[in-house]
């Protein structure tokens, strides 16, 4: 095992001001000075890190500066770990996952893993991915929404493991991407007043890269790359619970994992302190223990906001980063792992299958021989029967052979040869997996629309609204009419005082008449519009039902094709 000593790489990224902050009168409190120093604008405090990025930096630059090194190491068989730390709304998820146009570290990492597989010759690879989140001290599998609260256990070969976590074998970047999308839908993300999308859980995306030389010495190495998006650091609270069970409400804002993480980092950075390190106090630190103890190349990206509004929080993030910088590590390469490594396992399996195939073929020829010998000694009828039987056996064997061949093919397909990777870029074209997801989503939307349409109250409310609107239009016309009547009256008045009483009689009559007509017209209009609206709704429902059926068909055919592909 080779070992190299290194410090944890710590970078700080300053995010641009948000609208909320621009609107407030708060000032900018932190600024970048040189490439590796962050300075308090009004004071004298300065922090030195490996790199400091200001708000103009793109994630891709950070990726090339820091993450790429970790990934290259990973391809050589060293473990890697990248995590983002910072207050809620400081840009952790943006840095880690990014957006479609501005991909974060995770998608870029996946691309570069496959690019480097493409480049490396004489090697075979097997990529497995798992995606979990730690929320309220329970580990949930994001790739399987049914497995919640997974347990951690130790195994005497591999150390700490998560029991029952889904590990998907991936052969293309798009497949990994679809896993990410799937995981994203299961995530505990909520919007807070700070942020539209704030994650209150830690999410850990783990890629396990197994590689084997195809020529020369069959050197096998297994490395895991952990990409971690931590929950907001302000949740790293002192235990506000437990003193009183009546205060169970306060339970909610305890995030033991982060609290322990900062304690662990503090203890680790203080090399003279012989106090035991409380890795076991939380699930997060338990999982990160091997990485923090030094079997991984670790990058920490601390996200901060330059705004004075959150000065104290930013300061504590920077202090955390400062401590993390002091941790020294020795990184070892995971070379000789035993045959438990999957790539070997699959190859062994392939080998066994080949053996079986050969056996089958031998047995087939043997069956034929028996038949020949029996031809001599037995009667024709018996022979016929025998022949039928052996035919059946032959048939069975042939089928078995076919099946085995298929299985063999399947296992082979898990192993990625560099030349197979045609395009390491994640295509933006709609792939099957994406279709599946978008289909599911559109079904959801249609379902929602359908529900809304079926809700009677909303329909009526709309009708009442439209009626009111129409009434508003009618109102000025009405006043115009009465004005005209008034004018007419004036004319009549000036003409003949005698006809005054007559006019008065007529006026009330006309008024009554107008009122009645208006009410009738109004009623008619309302009935018409109501009918119209009802008709529209019916049509809409029909169209939506059709659409739904179409989507279901699509989904079914996709699932069929996926099954076939498998």
């Amino acid at each position, binding site marked *: *095992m080779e*070992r*190299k*000593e290194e410090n944890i790489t710590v970078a700080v990224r300053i995010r641009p001001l948000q609208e909320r902050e621009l609107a407030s009168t708060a000032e900018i409190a932190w600024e970048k000075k040189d490439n590796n120093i962050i300075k308090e604008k009004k004071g004298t405090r300065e922090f030195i890190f490996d790199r400091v990025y200001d708000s103009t930096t793109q994630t891709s630059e950070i990726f090339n500066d820091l993450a790429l090194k970790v990934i290259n190491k990973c391809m050589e068989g060293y473990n890697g770990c990248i995590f983002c730390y910072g207050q*809620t709304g400081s840009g952790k998820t943006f840095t880690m996952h990014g957006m479609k146009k501005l991909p974060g570290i995770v998608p870029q990492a996946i691309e570069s893993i496959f690019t480097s597989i493409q480049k490396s010759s004489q090697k075979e690879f097997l990529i497995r991915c798992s995606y979990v989140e730690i929320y309220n001290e329970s580990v949930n599998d994001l790739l399987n929404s049914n497995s919640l609260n997974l347990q951690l*256990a*130790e*195994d*005497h*070969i*591999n*150390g700490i493991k998560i*029991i029952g976590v889904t590990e998907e074998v991936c052969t293309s970047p798009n497949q990994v991407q679809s896993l990410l999308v799937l995981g994203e839908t299961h995530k*505990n*993300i*909520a*919007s*807070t*007043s*700070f942020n539209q999308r*704030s994650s*209150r859980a830690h999410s850990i995306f783990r890629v396990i890269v197994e590689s084997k030389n195809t020529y020369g010495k069959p050197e096998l190495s297994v490395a895991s790359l952990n990409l971690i998006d931590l929950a*907001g650091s*302000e*949740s*790293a*609270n*002192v*235990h*506000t*619970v*437990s*003193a*009183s*069970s*009546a*205060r169970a*409400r306060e339970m*909610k*804002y305890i995030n033991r994992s982060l609290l322990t993480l*900062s*304690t662990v980092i503090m203890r680790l950075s203080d*090399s003279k*302190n012989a*106090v035991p390190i409380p890795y076991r106090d939380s699930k997060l630190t338990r999982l990160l223990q*091997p990485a923090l103890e030094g*079997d991984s190349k670790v990058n920490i990206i601390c996200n901060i906001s330059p705004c004075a*509004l*959150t*000065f*104290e*929080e930013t*300061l*504590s993030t920077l*202090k*955390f980063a400062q401590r993390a910088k002091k941790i*020294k590590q*020795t990184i*070892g390469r*995971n070379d000789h792992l035993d045959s438990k490594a999957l790539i070997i396992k699959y190859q062994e399996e392939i080998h066994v299958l080949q053996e079986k195939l050969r056996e089958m073929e031998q047995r087939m020829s043997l069956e034929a021989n028996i038949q020949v010998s029996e031809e001599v000694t037995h009667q024709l009828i018996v022979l016929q029967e025998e022949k039928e039987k052996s035919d059946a056996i032959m048939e069975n064997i042939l089928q078995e052979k076919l099946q085995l061949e298929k299985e063999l093919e399947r296992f082979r397909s898990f192993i990625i040869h560099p030349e197979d990777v045609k395009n390491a870029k994640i295509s933006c074209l709609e792939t099957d997996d994406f279709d599946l997801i978008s289909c599911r989503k559109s079904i959801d939307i249609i379902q929602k629309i359908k529900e809304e349409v079926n809700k009677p109250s909303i329909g009526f409310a709309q009708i009442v609204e439209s009626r009111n609107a129409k009434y508003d239009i009618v109102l000025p016309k009405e006043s115009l009419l009465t004005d005209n009547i008034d004018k007419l009256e004036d004319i009549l008045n000036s003409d003949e005082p005698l006809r005054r009483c007559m006019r008065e009689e007529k006026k009330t009559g006309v008024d009554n008449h107008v009122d009645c007509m208006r009410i009738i017209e109004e009623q008619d209009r309302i009935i018409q519009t109501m009918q119209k609206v009802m008709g529209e709704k019916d049509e809409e429902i029909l169209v939506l039902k059709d659409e739904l059926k179409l989507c279901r068909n699509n989904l079914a055919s996709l699932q069929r094709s996926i099954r076939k592909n498998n």
Partner: protein
Amino acid sequence: MEFFYSSFQETLEQVDELMGRSADQAKPYEHKYTARELLQNLLNHERIQAQDEPARAAQALIEYILGVNHFETEEITESERHYSKCLNSLLSLPLFYQAKYLNTFQDVLNALGILQCNRGENQKGLEYFYKSQALYEAIKTIQTQDFSHTFHDYLTGSDNFRFIIQGGVNRRKAEQNYTLTLFYMAQAYSKTGEKHKSASFCAETMKRQMISGDYDMKDWAINCINMAEYYVENNYIAQGIYMLECGLSIITGKRRKLRSTLNMQIGRAYKSILELAVETTSQNKEIPKELNEQVLFLPMLTAEWKNVEFPTEIEAAKEMFKVAHGHFKIALEYFIIDGYVTEHIEMKKDISGLYKTLCYFEKSDPRVLAMLNRRLELIENFTKEINKQSYSALWQHLMNEVASIYMDIYEVKVIAAEEQKKPKKRLEKHAAANSYALTCIEKQTEMMEFVLKFDMNDDSAKDIMQSSLNLMFGIARLYSKLEDPDKVVRVGYMEKSYRWYEKIRKYLQDAKNGKYADKISDLNEQLRVCEEMVALMPIRISQVNADSYD
């Protein structure tokens, strides 16, 4: 005042209900934001904006709840702003009026303290906590009738007393708040590294929790474990065992892991008694007076205080061994190797350690040998089973232990050999013992190779160099000691010893010119010894050779 009793009170109750309501995962703070709006509106009400005393008191109450609200929605800076406003409003009131809101004072001081601690500003946090503590002391002295307001008329039996504008002191709430203050102080001190202070505050918290019955079983039991660890470390072993027994006594239901952990710790506490006993008798030290000192008594528990005594001879030691072993046995039933590698192996190591202390009191050699073999049975297999890369530290500890057991066996056998009168028999016995020494050397070599692969840095250099030097010196010395009836074999051992001394010399010389020369203590001294040995060994070899030609 009418306003305060009606709509003010009503809104606050509504807010309280909203803040406690559980929300949808996708919109976790939905109700809290609604509550916040209600509070803001209330704050802007003309009656509250008036500058008289009740209005200012009401402002303070609202600001406090706003602070809590912002804290819960993760807007810490805003939260702090509101808390400070609350504190200022309270302080602006005349003293008589302030006294009616002592509970809120406590609340806000605690809240500000936690806020500071969360930012790592433990000292600042502690200042608030000390103020809160002083406040509690003051509340204790207040005569009951002064402030025993009839808040029951408004909220019967509820602790939401602070909503009542009339004010007053709720003693139960004051006690609860003080327990929290102590609890926070214990944590803050543990962060600043002041163990003793942290422990004493923690002890006080636990006692108060026990008296009030306001505690979470799991947390309380875990605190017992932590406290016991602290007590045992500082030789208050009886106290430590008592804490653990208390922890066991409060557990209800299955809770296998918790029970097993407590049992494991009790086993370890008894083990440290035995170890301490060995240490004091072998070095003629005094028995530490803290051993049976009671620092903390926890009322209302079934667990009983037990004084412990140092065993001075084998029978007493065996009794203690049985107690410890029994606890480990219970714990091992849960902590099986599959899934709990570290706990399982650590405990096996602890049991091996128990035998080690027994060996000290045991006079009969065959029994000592049997115990040493038992120790090997317990742990040797693990050195082969576990992955030394994943469990680097654990593996090294185990190897060290195994090597030292082989060494012990060798020494016992050598003593037996030396007792033989006839030289031939003596040498034969030596030869039989040698296999153990060779196994020991084998283990040490394996360990050394593992250690040397670590790369050195400022922190690790000393450990790495020191332990590899120790191992190498141990190997060289052991080779030189081996005797054998066959002179050729013996010379072979001596030559190996010589080669090892040469290796050490080279290692030391390299280190002297290397980057970390200052990390080895008395490097020159060690080098001198080594060079002496390198010069001496050939002479001794030739002596043995000369003997054989006689």
